């Protein structure tokens, strides 16, 4: 087995991984950095983010306002010290991206332009048309080529971490192009492997978003935190789940039901004004909008699409062709190419789909996990800023803010870390390789992993969807346990070495099942409704007394995870009512009056 030695190993070259690599290279030019990604870096799913990234820049805006929107949006399950740090670092990071060339959209005078986003009181979302993530990712990737000390392992699939003496010391990787294994030893490891939305049926995520890093850390005893909070995005393409960015609504789009009625006004988000108003109607938070869809569907006020999915309509017609072309070109292209309709003239059928995993590998404010030498950043991590519901455009900011922290912290850790004993640890890598090969070559019972994957996705949608029931969640948990058993019965069609994507899909499924189980078990254990976790079986209310706490799923081999709870850090925002629309404004006014009086 080929072995490599490096100071810092970063698994994942999306927004978070690339930002970490650059930060590490700048923090210590002498540090050797290995950057591993299972796809070419620019294919990472950050590429798909459309809407933009939040950062306070307008003079009438403030860090406090961004803080409040975030905590409020997260239904007070955010760690407020982390949020405070986060909002203060967003704008500098966005400026840094600007200096690196990110083509942010501009005002006529050449200043940065910002747009409105769901749940944000003031416009503060920086955007590059509706290809914000694409431009951020390409800017970071291209900038990273400037640093010779960053050694990339493109198209290298990470199988497992190498952990010894309570410290992460590298990872085992497999090259899909050759089937060859190698061990990369490092003094510090950063996981930046992205989310896990693919465990659900309809989702906005790319095929690679399979929670690999979460599962790797989890199996080495690092808890997964707040996994029950999975965000549904309200406006997705029925069937495939491809996203129509929140920017559609930020630019003034309407959501209407089959009767052409702007139904959100019936769900505490009104009144329905013609012009978009922040934190109201279509600019409410994603959890509320997705829940409203569910209710409309129950009331029979949705349409059925040719894919057999129910849907409401996104109406962009009143924005006009010119604005659509300037601000939402990708959206218009998607509608025209994928659905054969022009949003300038026709309504777009949309429905909610799984979009984002709020939870992930637990870290502290410095992105350090409980496992020494292991750091995590980006969607795979739970650093504590999203709480029970992430606000749109807070995630791209997270990548740069905490990607950078991870890079700097890893450098610091690596400086003091003792050298890796590669000779001894190579056996661990060999064991990981053997395990992966065993899955490829197992005789099995003729079961197809694609069947298992579909069953997993269906049961997750049923049990852990927009609204949840104890009985259904239990069924999902049972089903997942069954699927984990059946994984041993899988027989692969392909046992070759070179570009064996059959094998890679099976390895990913193995990760996904663990992550799905952590989600379902955490959901079952949370007996309240908060943010994206909404129950209909007697736990419809938020219960701060018992559940103002982070869930922690602890891996147990061959058994369901242990769920425990950890404290939420509350500094300046005491849990309050989470209201939007006119009611939200009233409450805010009352609060202001209260403090002024």
């Amino acid at each position, binding site marked *: 087995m080929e072995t490599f030695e490096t100071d810092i190993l970063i698994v994942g070259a999306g927004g978070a991984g690339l930002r970490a690599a650059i930060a590490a290279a700048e923090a210590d030019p002498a540090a050797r950095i290995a950057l591993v990604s299972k*796809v*070419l870096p*620019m*294919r*990472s*799913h950050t*590429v*798909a983010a459309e809407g933009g990234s939040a950062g306070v820049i307008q003079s009438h805006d403030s860090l406090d306002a961004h803080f409040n929107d975030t905590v409020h949006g997260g239904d007070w399950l955010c760690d407020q010290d982390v949020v405070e740090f986060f909002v203060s670092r967003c704008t*500098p990071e966005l*400026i*840094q991206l*600007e*200096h*690196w*060339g990110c*083509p*942010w*959209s*501009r005002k*006529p*005078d*050449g*200043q*940065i332009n910002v747009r409105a986003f769901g749940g944000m009181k003031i416009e503060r979302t920086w955007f590059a048309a509706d*290809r914000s993530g*694409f*431009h951020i990712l*390409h800017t970071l990737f*291209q*900038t990273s*080529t*400037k640093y010779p000390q960053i050694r990339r392992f*493109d*198209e290298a699939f990470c199988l497992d971490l190498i952990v010894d003496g309570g410290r992460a010391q590298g990872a085992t990787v497999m090259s899909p*192009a050759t089937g060859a294994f190698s061990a990369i030893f490092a003094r510090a490891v950063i996981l930046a492997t992205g989310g896990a939305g693919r465990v659900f049926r309809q989702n906005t995520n*790319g*095929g*690679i978003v399979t929670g690999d890093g979460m599962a790797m850390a989890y199996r080495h005893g690092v808890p997964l935190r707040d996994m029950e909070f999975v965000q549904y995005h309200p406006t997705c393409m029925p069937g*495939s789940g*491809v*996203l129509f960015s929140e920017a559609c609504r930020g630019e003034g789009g309407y959501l209407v039901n089959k009767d052409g009625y702007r139904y959100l006004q019936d769900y505490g988000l009104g009144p329905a004004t013609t012009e978009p108003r922040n934190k109201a109607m279509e600019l409410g938070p994603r959890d509320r909008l997705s829940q409203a869809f569910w209710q409309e569907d129950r009331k029979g006020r949705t349409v059925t699409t*040719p*894919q*057999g999915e129910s849907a409401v309509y996104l109406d962009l017609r009143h924005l006009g062709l010119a604005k659509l072309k300037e601000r939402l070109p990708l959206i218009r292209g*998607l509608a025209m*190419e*994928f659905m054969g309709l022009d949003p300038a003239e026709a309504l777009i059928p949309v429905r909610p789909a799984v979009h984002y995993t709020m939870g992930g590998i637990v870290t502290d404010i410095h992105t350090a996990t409980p496992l020494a030498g292991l750091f995590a950043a980006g969607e795979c991590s739970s650093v504590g800023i999203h709480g029970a519901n992430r606000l749109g455009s807070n995630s791209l900011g997270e990548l740069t803010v905490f990607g950078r922290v991870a890079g700097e912290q890893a450098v610091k850790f690596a400086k003091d870390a003792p050298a890796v004993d590669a000779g001894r640890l190579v056996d661990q890598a060999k064991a990981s390789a053997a395990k992966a090969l065993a899955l490829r070559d197992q005789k099995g019972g003729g079961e*197809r992993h*694609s069947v298992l994957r*579909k069953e997993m996705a269906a049961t997750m949608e049923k049990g852990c969807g927009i609204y949840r029931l104890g009985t259904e969640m239990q069924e999902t948990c049972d089903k997942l346990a069954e699927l984990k058993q059946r994984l041993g019965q899988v027989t*692969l*069609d*392909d046992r*070759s070495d*070179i*570009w*064996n*994507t*059959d094998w890679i*899909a099976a390895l990913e499924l193995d990760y996904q099942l663990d992550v799905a189980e952590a989600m379902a078990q955490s959901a079952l254990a949370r007996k309240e409704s908060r943010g994206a976790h909404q129950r209909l079986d007697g736990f419809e209310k938020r219960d701060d007394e018992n559940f103002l706490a982070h869930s922690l799923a602890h891996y147990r081999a061959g058994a369901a995870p242990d769920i425990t709870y950890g404290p939420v850090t509350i500094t300046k925002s005491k849990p309050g009512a989470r209201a939007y629309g006119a009611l939200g404004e009233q409450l805010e006014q009352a609060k202001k009056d209260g403090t002024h009086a």
Partner: protein
Amino acid sequence: MPDPAKKTIELRILRYQPGVDAAPSFGTFEVAGAENMSVLEALQTIKDTLDGSLSFRWSCRMAVCGSCGMMINGEPKLACSTFLRDLPPGPVTVEPLNNFPIERDLVISVGGFVKKIESIYPYIMPKEPKTVEQGPYRQTPAQLAAYESFSDCINCMLCYAACPQFGENPDFIGPGAMALLQRYNGDSRDAGRQKRLDTIHGENGVWSCTAVGICSEVCPKSVDPANAVNQNKTNSAFDFFLRFLRKE
């Protein structure tokens, strides 16, 4: 719900497994109920239900990650945004991208392309360095428009599959990488123009291009790489004669 009276579509897919096959050959698959599928979805259906060994790259399914380029009925296309309903009736032919070595089935070698991207200094070399505290640079919408289309390249390499000169000379820097070069050379914040230009004066640089122009026609993102290459042919030509006047 799948339509009971569903139509079956035949896909002819070029297969190649190194070490087993001496040369690629076509395999045929029938996919039921495929008329509303993209070519990618049809391939996924084949992989999931008929033959798990079929290999191809994909991820985003929304025409933005650039993974799924392949020849569909002889034309370079993104499989995820090419719909079977839009293709002429009859069997659909799917092959790996032209002009690239085939690693396996529809998977081609991408390393050469990545090297080319890296070779042209694809990052801002600031005209006037600024610290983050000093805030963003100003860039008017007109200055943005000067390079914006070139920054939209998704690195899908369809243009390389279409360009016959790249077919003749695999070392030709090619349209996609030139689009990236022009993306930075056209940026009002950048001062690296000369340095980048100096990487493409050779026969493997812009001078392999004969202005066929088809690269721009197949580009799924309207990047117009032909413009990037040919505009720099002009730049390189002037530099050839004017370099002696240049003060370093």
